[in-house]
């Protein structure tokens, strides 16, 4: 068992590296210059809107009311912006991770989290992304962002994350 466990951890680490790498193609390119002056201006470089913290694409979490899995009106522009980005970048892929708060059984919440991931996927597809670009997973209530028994916590845990 121990051997199995270690290899799974390795796979997970590799997966984590692989999914993070595309985020920072710009950071990887420049030579390390030992000068502490202002960073070199790069007016000619086209910035990937995914890396722009002011862009709507910086929003990657979609939140849901209790026991609801439909994307709420306020979040639709966010999901549709990601859909547009994916349709314009057919080589990019996302993993939509659904989560639930702890009110319910673990199994019911796993199902609810899956439905939340699937409803975001469906909207991404409606917005132009291809099904092959989107993977979904549910963590149910197993990976809470916040662990207190109160609404302030629960509302953070009722969400789908779009991960590039």
């Amino acid at each position, binding site marked *: *068992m121990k051997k199995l*466990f270690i290899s*799974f*951890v390795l*796979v*997970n680490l590799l*997966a984590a590296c692989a999914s993070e790498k595309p985020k920072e193609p710009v950071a990887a390119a420049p030579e390390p210059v030992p000068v502490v002056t202002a960073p070199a201006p790069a007016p000619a470089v086209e910035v990937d809107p995914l890396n722009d913290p002011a862009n709507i694409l910086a929003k990657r979490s979609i939140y849901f009311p209790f*026991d609801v899995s439909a994307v709420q009106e306020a979040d639709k522009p966010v999901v549709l912006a990601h859909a547009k980005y994916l349709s314009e970048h057919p080589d990019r892929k996302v993993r939509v991770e659904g989560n639930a708060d702890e*009110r*319910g*059984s*673990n*199994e*019911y919440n*796993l*199902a*609810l989290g*899956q*439905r939340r991931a*699937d409803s975001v996927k469906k909207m991404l597809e409606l917005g132009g992304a291809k099904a092959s670009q989107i993977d*979904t*997973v*549910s*963590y*149910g209530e*197993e*990976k809470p962002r916040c662990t207190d*028994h109160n609404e302030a916590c629960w509302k953070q845990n009722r969400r789908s994350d779009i991960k590039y």
Partner: protein
Amino acid sequence: MALRVLQGMVGLLLLAQASVASAVLSIEIIGAGEHQIPVAIVPFGGDARLAQTINEVVAGDLQRSGLFRLIDVAGKSPHELAEVSYPDWQVRGADALAIGTVTAQANGRIEARFRLLDVVKQIELAGQSVSANDDQVRAVGHRVADLIYEKLTGDKGVFSTRIAYVNRQGRKFSLIVADSDGYNEQTVLAQNEPIMSPAWSPEGSHLAYVSFETGHAVVYVQSLHTRQRLALADFRGSNSAPAWSPDGKQLAIVLTRDGSSQIYLIRSDGSGIRRLTFSGAIDTEPNFSPDGQSLLFTSDRGGSAQIYSMPVGGGQEQRMTFGEGNNFSPRYSPDGKGFVCTHFVNGKFYIAAQDFQTGQVETLTAGGWEKKPSFAPNGKLILFASEARGRGILATVSSDGRVQQHMFTQSGDAREPVWGPHL
């Protein structure tokens, strides 16, 4: 439930024991049964160290059941039948008396000889010799307690059975198998990804469970003897909520491979998958009836999570719970006459039971963060996940709701407990 007397002495007694048994645990008992049988347990003769452990295990088991009142044995210590003077025990109010001896043998085994006597009728109710490896002294105690329980209540004891649960500590999850009193913990699987939904095979040799170690929920079946395991269901999406059929030949599982969470049947070798529900809603947490003919499950097809039943062979699905709140995690009673479930109303979780004949849902606990009930194989106790002092703990409640027990593991949150079968 009105009686909520904390019998702290037992908690302290077992807390002291915890330093000996590696990784557990303190136990608190709340409430008392209506008709408790007064029984005197004389500490065994022979090896004093072994005798002390056996005495603690037997006394703890009987007390936790809520069905017994332990009589003070001070000043009297018969170990053989010839040393028993029945009037001594009649004046102390004991209905039954347990005596015995335990010896360590040269071959590394221990042997306990034990008698249960009816003080009123002045006859021997049972006599037994139990032999075990010297690291299984607690198991000997559980055997003795089972025999006392069975002779005095008429129901089979469950103290020698095991439980499984998930322990969560930060990001670390462990699948644990332990004795029915929480001691003798053994780790089946430990990892930094979630583990859910342990389920015992009917003969207690295998556990089915859900692990996220590959990044999504996959159902595994693992042998507790060889530790070999099989990825039973690893389809696209979530694979979850395994439940064994009573004959052990197949499992009901929940898959999202065709859309929403639906219930499927699969053979225990992973072949012959067949879809059972077609609701398009969430259907999950299937549980087989003892005769294998029906399933109870949780569904939100009516707009909120409630309990439903359906024939395994196909046919009319029927809603079982109505009224305020939601219901989750149904499990048939071993006699098939009702079920327990998690009842959620006004922000609190309760352990609740429904009798099929009356259709009434009755709460067995005071409410709080109480989830995932499962019956002991004799139907007299219900194990569930609770919370106390900010931690997830294991708890039991008697099926009449009168006696509760809280078991505190040493660290982390205990989740998703499930009571194993008779071995």
